[in-house]
Every structure is written in C-alpha cells, then in structure tokens.
C-alpha cells in the first residue's frame, strides 16, 4: 500500500510538470499582459520599459527555465495585476472556494442520497417518475441560468436571500444550490442504478428470505455495496465543482479562486494563471488518490500491489 502511494505521488509530480508546461505556453500564446496594463496613450518606450522590468522581454525558453526553477522552490512569482505573490493571493481565496464547494457537495448529497434510494426502491411507481424527471431537468440546465433564476425568486421577489457577495451564513445558500444541482442529479441517477442492481442481487434475496426488514436490507446490505461508484464519481466531480465554481463565483460575486482565475486570464496575469492551474491540478490529483485509498477501506477485496 505504502509503495503504491509513493508511486502515485511520483506520478503526480510528472502530471503537474506537464500541466505547468502546457499552461506556461498556452497562456503566452493568447496575448500580452503589458499591452493590457498600460493605457492607450503609452508610448512604445514605456511599454518596452515595463516589459523589461517584468522580465517578459527575455527569450521564451529562458522565461520557461526561470519559471521551472522557481517552481521547484515552490515560488510561483508575483502577480502582475496585484503586484503581490501569486501564492498568497490564492491562499487568501482558497477558503471561500472550498467553503462553496463543500456546501454545494453537502447540499447535493443530502438530497441525492435519499432521492437515489427512493427511486431505486420505488421502481416504476409514480414517485420515481416525478423524482427522475426533476433530476433530469436539473442536470440539463446550465449553472449560470440556475443562479439567475434563484436570484430572481429568492432575492428580488421574496427578498429573503442576498443576491451575491459574502457576509453572513445566508450568503452561501444560493451559490451552493446553483453549484450543487449538477452533482445532485448525477449522484441521484448513479445511486439509483447501482442500488437497483444491488437490490436484484442474490445476497439481498437471501437477506429478504431470512425475513430481515426491508429497511435493514436496503440500509445495511445493499446501500453499502452501491456506494462505491458514488464515491468514485464524487472524487471525479471535485474537478467539476472547481470548474463550476468559476461560473458560479462570477454570477454571485463570490470572491474565490474561480473568480480569481477568470480575472487573471482576463488580464493575462501569467504568474497567477500558472499558479492557480497548477494548484487546482494538484488538488484534483490528490483527491483522486484519496478516492483510490478509500476504495480499500470500503471494499476489502480491493488490494493495490
């Protein structure tokens, strides 16, 4: 197990190196931060001066080597727009994004797990049809639209929740719902099919035959076995939550990493874009590793050699 984890971590270093390289070159293909930083009446000399002082006048390969060298020291450089260390800015924003992602996940699981169980148990009944059609609808509408709809209902019409920004606990409700709908739908459908499968299996029939109460059958025998794919998908969806947070944070003016990423791409703030992408990729790789380790805990038959 330990050698497996070490091997996976080494592999992660390679992945991050690849990500760093790709983001370095792609960011530079899309434009020039200096031209955006200076007003239109700047002279060519002023532009060149600023470019030189930011080290953006060096040959690309040299810039790349400097970047890699600094990366090894965990130095992501200074943000061009904010004139502050990129890492500091990201760490400042991380809590807000994690909070939002966590709240979205909790919101979606609290609804999705019961909904998944209901639809699996009540197969073919009217209640299953209602839940499933709602779920399909939720999975089909885009995040920003859900967000605007929620604002229209809860903030403008009912005036009970704020339209955006941060403050008290009320502020997280709407963005978390908007961000969580997709995951909610996904988990409901997944749990329904995997629980349905488990309920048709031999051991459940045996349990039923022994005269166990249906509650026990579902709860203790079937549900445990059908959670494995759900855990997998939750791990994979962490990436989607981080991606979705970009849109949600913009719609709700939620000052997290997603909004910072949009701003930094917009301003061609290379050091900041690089740092955010590398750190998000790192989180993604790490979450997947944790999911794989959880497998062993959930399903003792799985072994990594």
């Amino acid at each position: 197990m330990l050698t497996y984890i070490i091997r996976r971590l080494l592999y992660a270093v390679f992945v991050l190196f690849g990500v760093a390289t790709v983001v370095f070159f792609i960011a530079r293909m899309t434009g020039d931060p200096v031209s955006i930083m200076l007003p239109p009446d700047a002279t060519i000399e002023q532009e060149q001066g600023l470019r030189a002082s930011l080290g953006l006048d060096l040959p690309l390969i040299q810039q790349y080597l400097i970047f890699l060298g600094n990366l090894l020291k965990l130095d992501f450089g200074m943000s061009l727009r904010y004139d502050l260390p990129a890492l500091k800015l990201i760490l400042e924003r991380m809590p807000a994004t994690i909070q939002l992602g966590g709240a979205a996940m909790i919101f979606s699981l609290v609804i999705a797990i019961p909904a998944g169980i209901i639809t699996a148990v009540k197969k073919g009944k009217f209640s299953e049809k209602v839940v499933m059609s709602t779920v399909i609808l939720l999975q089909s509408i885009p995040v920003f639209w859900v967000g605007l709809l929620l604002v229209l209902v809860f903030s403008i019409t009912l005036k009970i929740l704020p339209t955006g920004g941060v403050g008290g606990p009320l502020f997280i409700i709407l963005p978390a719902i908007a961000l969580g709908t997709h995951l909610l739908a996904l988990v409901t459908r997944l749990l329904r099919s995997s629980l349905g499968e488990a309920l048709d299996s031999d051991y459940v029939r045996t349990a039923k035959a022994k005269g166990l109460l249906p509650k026990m059958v579902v709860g203790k025998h079937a549900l445990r076995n059908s959670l494995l794919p759900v855990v997998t998908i939750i791990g994979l969806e962490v990436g989607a939550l981080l991606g979705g947070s970009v849109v949600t944070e913009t719609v709700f003016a939620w000052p997290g990493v997603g909004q910072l990423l949009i701003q930094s791409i917009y301003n061609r703030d290379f050091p900041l874009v690089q740092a955010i992408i590398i750190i998000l990729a790192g989180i993604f790789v790490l979450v997947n590793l944790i999911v794989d380790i959880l497998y062993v805990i959930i399903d003792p038959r799985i072994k990594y050699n």
Partner: protein
Amino acid sequence: MLKKSFLFIILMVLTILGACGLEETGQTTETSKEKDTTLIVAQQSDTSTLDPQKQGKMPDMNILINMFDTLITTDSDQQLAPSLAESWEVVDEDTWEFKLREDVIFHNGEKFNAETVKFSIERLLDPATQSPIVELSNVESVEVIDEYIVQLHTAGSDPILPNKLTLFGGVIVPKEYIEENGEEHFAEQPIGTGPFKFVSWKRDNEVVMESFEDYWQGASAIKTLKFRAIPDEANLAAALRAGEIDIATGITPDIMKQLEGNTEINVKSEQGIRTFFISLDTKDPESPLHKKEVRQALNYAVDVDLMIDSVLDGQAKRVTTLIPEENFGYDESITPYEYNPEKARELLNEAGYPDGFDITFDANNLDSNNVQVITAQLKKIGVNVEANLMDGQTFISNIRAEKASPMYYQGNTGWTLDAMSNFQSYIKSDRRYNRWEDDKVDKLIDIEEQSLDSKVRQEAFTELQEIIKEEAPFIFLYQINNLYGIQEGVNWQPNSIGILRMYGASK
C-alpha cells in the same frame, strides 16, 4: 447507519455555515441611522491595488479618488478647478508653477506641502515604481520653491499639464508615511488626503471606507462608503432591485430598460465623453481602404442615428470625429457625415469598386450588437464584412501587436477633457495606433501639443478636424452616455468623465 450519516451530514452543514458566520460583516446589525449614512456603490470590477500610483484604469481610480486628492480637479462644467493646488500658471515655455493649499492634512495627520508633491511625482516617475501611469512622462524635474509653491519642469512645452493632474498622475501620496512604513504597508493601509479613510478591503468583493472628519473641504454627509465588485451584469441589476446597493454604475441600455419600470430606482443618464469609432487601415496600397473615396463611402453608408436609436436606446450622441463636444478643441461648426447610401455607392464606383469588396472587422464581443448593425449597413453598399468578435483583452492585445484586422471598433476616453488626448495615439504618423499618414496633420499635431496659446491650439484643432473628416481614416460614430441605477432617496450627481467621486453624495 442511515440515521448516523444523516446526523453527520447535518453536523457538517452546521460547521460550514458556522465558518461562514465567522465572517459576519455586521451587515445585519446595522441600525437605521447607520443605514442613512452608509452608501454602497457597485461596479463590475474591483480595484487591483490600493496604491494609487500602481494603477491606470478607471475602475481602480473610481475607488481610490475617494481616498486620495489630486492637485487639480474638474468641476461640473468640465472646467479645471482648484483642489490641492489653489492656482497654477505658466512661468516659461517649459515650466508650470502650482501654488498649494496650506490647510491640508493626510488621514494620519501628516502635513501636505510642496515636498509631498515633489515626492509623489518623483515616485510616480521612478522606474522602480513600475507605474502604469504614463501621462507625466514629459516631466523632467520637480522643484520646491517654498513650502507651498512647487514648479514642474517639462521636456518641451506641455499646454495640458494641469489637465493631466486631475486624475491618475495628479494623485498625491504621503511622503513620510511611505518612507517610514514602506511600499507594501502603504498598499495594504493606504493614507491619503481625500474625503474618506480606508477601513478594509476584501479583494474582488468590497472596499470599505469611512468619512475623514478633518477633510479640508469639510466632512462628508456619508459616513460609511462601500464599493462592491459585482462582475455579472444581471447580478448587478439584481442587487440594485433587491435594495442591497445604492448605486449601480456602468450599466448597459439593456439593463437600463429592465430597471425603468421600477419605482424605487431612478435611472440616471449623463452624457459621457467616451467616443467610439472604427479604425481603418489605410497603409496597404492594395487595400480598398487606401483610397479616400472608399473611406468616405463607408462613412456615408453607416446610419449612426439609427444605431443610436436602436442598439444604444438613444443613450449616445453623434460626433463628427474622435472628439466629444465637452473637450477643448471640439469645433461644432464641422458637421458629421450624413447617412447617404446612394452617395456611398457613387464613391465606391469612382474608386473602382462598383461591386464592393470583402473585408474583415475586429471587435470586442461586448459590442456585438453595434457590430451587427454596422455590418448589415455596409452590406447594403456591397461591402461584405466578416466580423471577428473576441474578448476585450485579446482584442486589445491584437491591436497593440499590430495583428488587428483592417477595420476595428474602438472606444477612447479623453479624460483630460482636451482633444490632445483624443488624437494622441491615433493621428500622428509616429504614434502607436496610427494607420494613416499625412504630413500636414503631423505639423498641426505638433502645434496643438506644444503651443501654450489656447487660441493657436483651437485653430490647429479646427483645421485637424476638417482634414480628418475629409480624409476619413476612421468611420466616425458617437459618444456614449454613462448610465447609473440609483436607489430612490440617494442624492448624487454624476459627471461626464464618469469618475465615481462620492464626496457630496447624501441619502
């Protein structure tokens, strides 16, 4: 098992909500009296820094102008007015002298005097500051004459140096405070002489300020001023409709329409000085745009009044060239091109393009509606325009890298209120965005940029506008209004520059 996990989940929810609760901003505990003296202004972006000499964009300046004063300001008639400088005059060809107010202190009590001005301008010009502010690059030295008199020496004459000191370049920063505490501390805890003191900043969310009771013009009626950043336009309008903000700035005509039916919100429209035009690349001898007749034809073919009525919902005004009517140098006797598609076709015929031609056209995707109208109108005279819409920053990068199409749609704000700024980067042949050359025009630009005699300058500007209209190196369009959504009961007078100075506002 299920019950346990349910309990666990509920605990988790409470934890997360608790964590959010720790960040209570006290918004819920405000008394009604505090509400009356708290003003919340929202725009689509936040400032990138609190150090006023490290920013060069309007959204940043909009926030910082409330904490910092400039040497000179502009009044409601778009005229220069005293601020930290009481008066100013030309001493000789390359020297301006400023007499300073003697009763000004910074938020921490530090005194303002000629040394402060010298320090501020020298810090701005120091390459180590890496300032994006460019308009004072012709200032060679700052000389302290006595405690309240300071002289600025320029390389050559600069007739509009005082105008340049009304915003970015004219911001005054505290000498002793920065020298004692360092640059970084200043950017975290800024100190100015302005009407509001800094309280807190949550990046990309909210800047909070409070009234500076010892402000030299008297304390503001507003005691707490907050600037919120709401990037999404629909959400900005929603926040206003929900009563969360007092003033929403930079709204579009579409959003304005949404707000018009609302009795609690007043939509204010103030004529603005941002002008729009389409740059034409005249330099390629093979291109149809090389011919004057073609360029004139394009101007006759675009029905600008229709564009203003339809896409801009009437919130704009026709301009003859690149200069808005508020700016010095504008000559109202020169009239804009009329809409005349027949004449446009005749001119194309004369130029040798009876069947029109194909051309590409770049624009910021936010301007897609305007671009569609222009494209359709040019098609009527046989000019097939292929529009490339892209995000604003890519668009700017392309223009600066000289990779832009032969036509591009561009806006420019000459905030100095002098036509020199409108022409600065576009007209003279050695400038960055120039795509048209004319020797006579170059000489006229030199006159208006170097002469200190305003009569001579006005004559040069008039002649320039005549030539530019005739030669048509651009398709001339309009100056757009600044639109604001303002909560009923909030008093605030916008200005044509669009700068969000909140001193003088009340509720």
